């Protein structure tokens, strides 16, 4: 009966997770094509260093160490999950214990040790958010759901760890009660007798172990299915997202091919201005107004963001009180993508909901505050590029809507008229050579 229940629960959890992953994939594919299939070796290297190795986290050592505790506990605990699956489906108890012997004791002890570190790490993270009120974790774009989301994840992690120790601790206490010698796992051999040593009833201890076991696996499945609705999805997205990182120098912006075609036509004296434009060259619009105008990588970036706010805390515009926050750009992009994805799944792929990323979510004032300094790109621990979204939205404003701050209109006119952002004639370019 228990095995059947476990099987159904497992099937349902993975099924629902797969269903949501498909939605995520569909949403990412709302974006425009972009070729990132080059340089496989460097891409793997970037992923190993930045995602697996957490290289960029360590620019801030304290949160990096706390995060490392949670991260390594999470990764290593997946090994124990294999046993939980086997035990759950077959009805066995600690399936690998006998065959692995001392190695099993070592592995579980290791997992227990990391879980304790993760427990304290989680408490520290909760304190940083809610008691120390770290500025970057308490900005206005996090009001409401994002703050609840962050706390909920941390609380789920605490429950998860509590379940592990209820399971292992009660098991330990039961064994000691039966035969005076327990599993001998590093932490549960201490906390087991401590918390459950007073219980002299085997039945109660088994029940407690069962509660821990079921609680743990239910939390794991809940957590897994919560991820697609949460910023915490970064635990998966960090890997593909760093693999598909921009490998060019940060200062290099894309050259828009659609513009090249038109400009070449304008500069070519032999071009026939009445000739039909090649059909494949004309884009729907220049620049980006909505998420469908961004690339799939921009959208993957949005799903990878865990709202840590390092970008925003390094942004010169934000730190001097301007409206721009690179984190908000990413959150807006994700929220709009999810909204539009849901709308299109409901109303058909060509349906329009009359909203757009630019306007409904992001304002012009935010976009014009950017200095394109790349601090946000540099800071992001999972190589998100908010700057390319900002520039694509600016391109739409300027090229499609002619919405340019007045002073910039002058600068642009000067470049077009006299080849410099100021009103100087080209003939004066060499004057400095003869001045004192």
């Amino acid at each position, binding site marked *: 009966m228990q095995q059947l229940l476990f099987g159904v629960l497992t099937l349902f959890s993975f099924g629902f997770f797969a269903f949501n992953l498909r939605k995520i994939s569909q949403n990412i594919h709302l974006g425009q094509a972009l070729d990132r299939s080059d340089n496989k070796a460097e891409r793997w290297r970037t992923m190993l260093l930045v995602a697996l190795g957490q290289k960029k986290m360590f620019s801030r050592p304290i949160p990096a160490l706390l995060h490392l505790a949670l991260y390594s506990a999470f990764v290593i605990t997946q090994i124990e999950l294999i046993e939980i699956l086997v035990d759950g489906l077959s009805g066995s108890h600690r399936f690998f214990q006998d065959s692995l012997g001392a190695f099993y004791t070592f592995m579980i002890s290791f997992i227990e040790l990391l879980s304790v570190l993760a427990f304290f790490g989680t408490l520290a993270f909760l304190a940083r958010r809610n008691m120390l009120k770290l500025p970057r974790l308490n900005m206005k774009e996090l009001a409401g759901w994002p703050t609840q989301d962050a706390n909920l994840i941390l609380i789920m992690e605490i429950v998860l760890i509590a379940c592990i120790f209820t399971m292992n601790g009660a098991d330990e206490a039961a064994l000691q009660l039966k035969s005076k010698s327990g599993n001998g796992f590093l932490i549960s051999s201490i906390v087991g007798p401590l918390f459950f040593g007073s219980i002299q009833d085997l039945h109660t201890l088994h029940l407690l172990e069962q509660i821990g076991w079921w609680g743990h696996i239910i939390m794991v499945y809940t957590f897994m299915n919560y991820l697609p609705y949460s910023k915490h999805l970064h635990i998966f997205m960090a890997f593909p997202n760093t693999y598909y990182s921009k490998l060019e120098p940060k200062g*290099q912006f894309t050259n828009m091919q659609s513009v090249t075609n038109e400009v070449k036509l304008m*500069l070519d004296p032999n071009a026939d201005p009445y000739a039909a434009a090649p059909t494949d060259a004309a884009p729907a619009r220049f620049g980006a107004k909505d998420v469908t105008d961004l690339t799939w990588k921009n959208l993957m970036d949005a799903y990878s963001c865990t709202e840590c706010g390092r970008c925003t805390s*390094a942004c010169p515009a934000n730190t001097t009180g301007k409206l721009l926050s690179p984190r908000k750009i990413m959150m807006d992009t994700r929220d709009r993508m999810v909204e539009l994805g849901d709308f299109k799944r409901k109303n058909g792929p060509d349906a329009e909901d009359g909203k757009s990323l630019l306007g409904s979510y992001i304002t012009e004032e935010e976009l014009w505050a950017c200095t394109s300094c790349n601090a946000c790109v540099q800071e992001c621990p999972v190589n998100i590029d908010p700057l390319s979204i900002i520039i694509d939205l600016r391109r739409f404003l300027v*090229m499609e809507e002619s919405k340019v701050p007045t002073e*910039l209109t002058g600068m642009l006119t000067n470049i077009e008229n006299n080849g410099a952002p100021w009103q100087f004639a080209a003939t*004066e370019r*060499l004057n400095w050579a003869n001045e004192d």
Partner: protein
Amino acid sequence: MSLQVRTMADMMASGETPEILFWVGCAGSFDDRAKKITKALVKILNHCKVNFAVLGSEESCTGDPAKRAGNEFTFQMQALMNIELLNGYEVKKIVTACPHCFNTLKNEYPGLGGTYEVIHHTQLIQDLINTGKLTLADNGTFKGKKITFHDPCYLGRANDVYEAPRALIEKLDAALVEMKRCKTNGLCCGAGGAQMFKEAEKGNKEINIERTEDALETKAGIIATGCPFCNTMMTDGVKHFEKEEDIKVLDIAELIANAADL
């Protein structure tokens, strides 16, 4: 000694080819403060007998501020015209004292048909010193002085050039003191992304003031830069704090020209 500057057109007419093109840039050509940087660099080039040329009246904006402002049309018009000119002169190597020109020429022109070896002037000067073509006079100009270096975003983060300017400051026999935000963490001066040409958006502080505070904290007597726009922003910042008597904002080229008694 007057500056020896020849144009590409002039050299071409007499059948000569320069080793390197000096891309002066709009700021270096027209801005009174930046022109001094241009002249300092030319003094160094002249002193080291570098066979260089400029484009003179044929030079035109790289298109950087247009591109960052979102006007890809204006950028590509400029880029394609410049590339036609540069390719016509068979330019192979370019040096520039402006990180914005540097970034655009180096990274964004190749995709449009203009591939050149592009270096920042601090890299060229470093090379001149390393190969023994330039020696700094032992005149003690900067001995014991504290110098801090402000990383231009388009040189540092954008193109990972952090060491060349610092290596040059260290050659000055001065003490290089870093700001709390430096290198990859360097704070922007506020001019990039076409902000130079517009008022800042509404906020509670100007970015260059925030950055000047970083520099003042170091107690350095000289703020060194490698970008004409950073120079303007930092100079304005120093003026804001009425410190222009105590703190000079100088380009690396000016520091080196000074130390080499040029």
